[in-house]
């Protein structure tokens, strides 16, 4: 799994289409054509992938919005970002 420093500011790749559907997010990667479905936590994190929010703030938002502890939130954010990175959906 890719490690992401707390100060890293992930940014979704340009050209990814996004629709919120019943609290979840459906993403189309225009570059590869892959379609991703994100659960509610993923949909929330997706809105923060603007290059402005760092990894620590993503974790904080998960802690605010979902009933998870810090260790779980850290793991979820890392897994989420790692998965997007593998799919070529993140810049950098």
């Amino acid at each position, binding site marked *: 799994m890719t490690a992401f420093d707390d100060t890293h500011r992930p940014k979704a790749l340009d*050209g*990814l*289409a*996004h*629709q919120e*559907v*019943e609290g*979840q*997010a*459906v993403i*189309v990667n*225009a*570059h590869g*054509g892959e*379609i*991703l*479905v994100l659960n509610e936590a993923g949909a929330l994190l997706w809105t923060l992938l603007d290059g402005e929010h760092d990894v620590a703030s993503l974790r904080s938002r998960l802690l605010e919005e979902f009933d998870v502890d810090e260790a779980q939130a850290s793991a979820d954010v890392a897994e989420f970002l790692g998965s997007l990175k593998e799919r070529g959906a993140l810049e950098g």
Partner: protein
Amino acid sequence: MIGFGPLTLDATGDAASCRRLEELALPWDEHRAGLALRLDVDLGGRGLPVRPGQRLRVDVSRDDDGRHALSHDFACSLDQGGERATLSLAELDGQRRDDAIQNGLRVLCAWRLAETDTGLLLHAAAVTRAGVAELLLGASGVGKSTLARLAAPRPVLADDVVLVLRRDDGGWSTAASPFFAEPSFPGRSRDGSALRCGRLLLLEQAARPCLSDVPVPLRAAAVAAHAPFLTGVGLEEAGLRLAKDLVTSIPSCRFAFAPDASAWSLLDPAGTKNGSEEGSSDTLPTAAD
């Protein structure tokens, strides 16, 4: 003007090409506004950037001039305004030429439907059941065509590509793909009529048939995944929006089926005659809406 389903073409080009388009035309309701296109057409295979002999694949791209598609047997483009198009073919004869025409028109149709938020061209089959159309959606090889053929005596609208179009009342209509080269099925209408879209079935094969619920986001993703030619030409967002609206407007479920004569028994309530009553022809939404 030449009608091909929702497309209304003002064709320019050599006389033979325009004449062949007119011969193949299959317009829908003439009183209904279509997606008008000025189409510069060359079916003669003269100096075209197409790739005869390669396997069927359509590469799409976008630049400052508009959207472009290139396949083994056709090339087409649509300008930024969405009103002027070109269609050129490789040097082909007979049915292969007509198939190539249809393939090119399908791409143009998919683009125009999406950019006008009018509808989607879907890689799917559609069967008439109890007066409405049921969409059969699934990965290549899952058995869409097989299931469609097992649907007899239900009329089959299409076994490969269908159009789903917004209706004025918030529902959706289903029509056979453009426009003229689909295989013939018993009961298939060739008058371009459309039926109300009654249900979307997401197909998978299984030893024991069953119907099960599918979360709405996954339904939307499935529909978007089967809407070809939109990715890479700036129509991803439009396709997703249409997919979302479709799956939130009509009932949808997963249909696991065994590809045999029993497949449809699960879908037909006891006492109905295999859902085979005549489908009532419906009018299409105004494409320009």
